[in-house]
């Protein structure tokens, strides 16, 4: 709008410091773009919707059990279904508590971390600071590939290949460290123990933790690395004093992603471990399970009520792994940003 000089009012001139009002830059999208944006928006929110539906349905289906058991669903050590799958009444009143399996989940996942994380961190150090360029390229692909192995392969391999050396190691552990309660066994049978399940889980999480640790290590600023070398540092001194402080929290985040994977693993644990519903801290003893394998085990012959309890267990598993994953992702992405 063109204004001539006389259009300027006295009031405008007298206004001492009329601050310029910013114009809002609005472009009205054309109809085709509005449709496009709407479609992409709907697609974009699909993951939010799916996550919401998962949480909602599992909670909704398991709600009656969660309400009747309340906190003892988490802390209870007994899983008894009073109704048989054919509908007849069982001998005992039913109680549903996943405590023992929560413990089993943690025990196997912790074993996996204890074994898998050091291996992963050192493998990642090798890939970042030791490997020649060409070897590194190949090995990084191998790590990615290993992460894509189906979990049933780990189960099969664990059962048919790893079981024997695993039992041998378990025997040695029991022989020399048997005085520590977790390595004690009532009878010297080491078949299908949480220890071996933990070993299999360790192999499963190694590619994940290695890949993330490698990425984090690779973000150590080159000029800091060079500064360390220029001060006469050996490779180890450089890694300890420069690379680790940069990557510490990222590696922790990577380990947590591994933890999430190990906690939710179903098939491999079910295949390798002798699934028994008991809280077993004796890791060399062939009994135990985790939440996921428990669900699989009970699902086949579950009554309608027990199915609800399994849904509730699934809900607990979902929340647990979701929380672990979210925390892990926050840590990893924060490290990534700071490192750059």
């Amino acid at each position: 709008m063109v204004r001539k000089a006389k259009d300027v009012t006295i009031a405008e001139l007298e206004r001492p410091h009329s601050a310029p009002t910013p114009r809002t830059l609005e472009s009205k999208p054309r109809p085709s773009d509005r449709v496009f944006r709407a479609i992409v928006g709907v697609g974009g929110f699909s993951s939010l919707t799916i996550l919401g539906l998962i949480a909602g349905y599992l909670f909704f289906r398991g709600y009656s059990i969660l309400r009747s058991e309340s906190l003892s669903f988490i802390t209870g050590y007994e899983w008894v279904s009073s109704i048989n799958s054919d509908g007849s009444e069982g001998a005992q009143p039913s109680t549903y508590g996943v405590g023992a399996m929560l413990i089993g989940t943690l025990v196997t996942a912790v074993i996996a971390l204890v074994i898998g994380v050091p291996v992963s961190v050192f493998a990642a150090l090798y890939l970042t600071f030791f490997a020649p360029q060409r070897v590194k390229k190949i090995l990084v692909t191998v790590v990615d590939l290993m992460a894509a192995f189906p979990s049933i392969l780990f189960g099969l391999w664990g059962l048919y290949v790893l079981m024997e050396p695993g039992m041998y190691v378990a025997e040695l552990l029991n022989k020399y460290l048997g005085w520590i309660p977790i390595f004690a066994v009532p009878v010297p049978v080491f078949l299908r123990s949480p220890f071996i399940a933990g070993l299999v889980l360790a192999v499963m999480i190694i590619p994940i933790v290695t890949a993330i640790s490698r990425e984090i290590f690779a973000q150590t600023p080159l000029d800091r690395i060079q500064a360390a070398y220029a001060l006469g540092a050996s490779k180890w001194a450089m890694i300890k004093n420069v690379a680790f402080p940069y990557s510490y929290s990222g590696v922790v985040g990577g380990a947590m992603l591994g933890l999430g994977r190990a906690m939710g693993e179903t098939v491999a644990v079910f295949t390798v471990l002798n699934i028994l519903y008991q809280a077993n801290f004796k890791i060399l003893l062939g009994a135990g399970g985790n939440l996921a394998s428990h669900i699989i085990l009970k699902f086949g012959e579950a009554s309608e009520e027990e199915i609800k309890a399994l849904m509730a267990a699934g809900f607990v598993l979902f929340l647990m792994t979701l929380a672990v994953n979210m925390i892990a992702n926050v840590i990893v992405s924060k490290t990534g940003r700071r490192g750059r």
Partner: protein
Amino acid sequence: MTTIKTVAPIRPWRPTKRDYTLQIAIIIGSLVASYLLVANTGFEGRLSLVIFFGFFAVVALAILSGLRRGKEAAKDAVMAGAAYTGIFALLLPVVSMLWTVISRGTAAIYDGFFTTDMSQDPFSSPLDAGGIKHALIGTLWLIAIALIISVPLGILTALYLTEIKGPGSALIRFLVQAMSGIPSIVAGLFIYSALISGTGRGFSGFMGALALSILMIPTVARTAEEVLKLVPAEYREAGLALGATQWKTVALVVIPAAKSGLVTAVILGVARIAGETAPLLFTTGGADNTNLNPLDGNMGTIPFYIWKALIDGSPEAASRAWAGIFILMLAVLSLFALARFLSRASIVK
């Protein structure tokens, strides 16, 4: 006097012949020592041989470096030894798994393996009967349906994050990441609880595909987002500056530029779900007969076939399980090789 051109480049920081000789001597010495130890003490097996070999080699290297260059060098050598041990411990299971799959995977494969199903023969029957026709068909159906569902949703999610950058982008990115970590069993349980349990509908291939889609969407979305981010902003600006709508710019400029990368994203998504077992146990029913209709009736799949063979436990069933995993691994490896090839063939030209 001095002729510049004839000077040959050298790399004095590389290990010398003497260093290599010493290293070989250490390796041989450690091998002998570990062999003697395993042969003459209570330890047994190849595993302990390997462990003792590694231990001796690292200790010997550390002592050698310590003698030559002091304490710090010894620590450095131990550290290098640990790094080498780490990568070795990573590779050992990979090699072992691939080797076992190859060596045990072919025993159950015979002429009719791909043309018969398991409806007539139990898993413990001799290896010249039955096959995986039903499972192969089922897996292909599941992958096809999962592709139809999750490719659009995954790529739309990626487009939302990179092109529209709409409200909640950060939240969605966060949720997609978290979603890729949810246990596969939860996906199966969810489909069962929402669409099967109490609805009168039974198991079917379609239900399995839905469960697999939940696992595939985040993989596709994350990889596709990475790929779309690589498309230079100038491309988009150029499109918009020509007066094209955003929709046209995305469809005609951005997506073609990222095409092979997007295909890679999809392939990686398929590789992710091809071997998933747990969700199928709640959704497909796992038939032994050939079922061509994914919308109705139990459907067998390769992972379920392996699962059944595993549960059966007989030696024949074990061979069948290995054969199943052999086929599955062939598929996963070829998908992976294809993805590598495509992503190497430059994402944005």
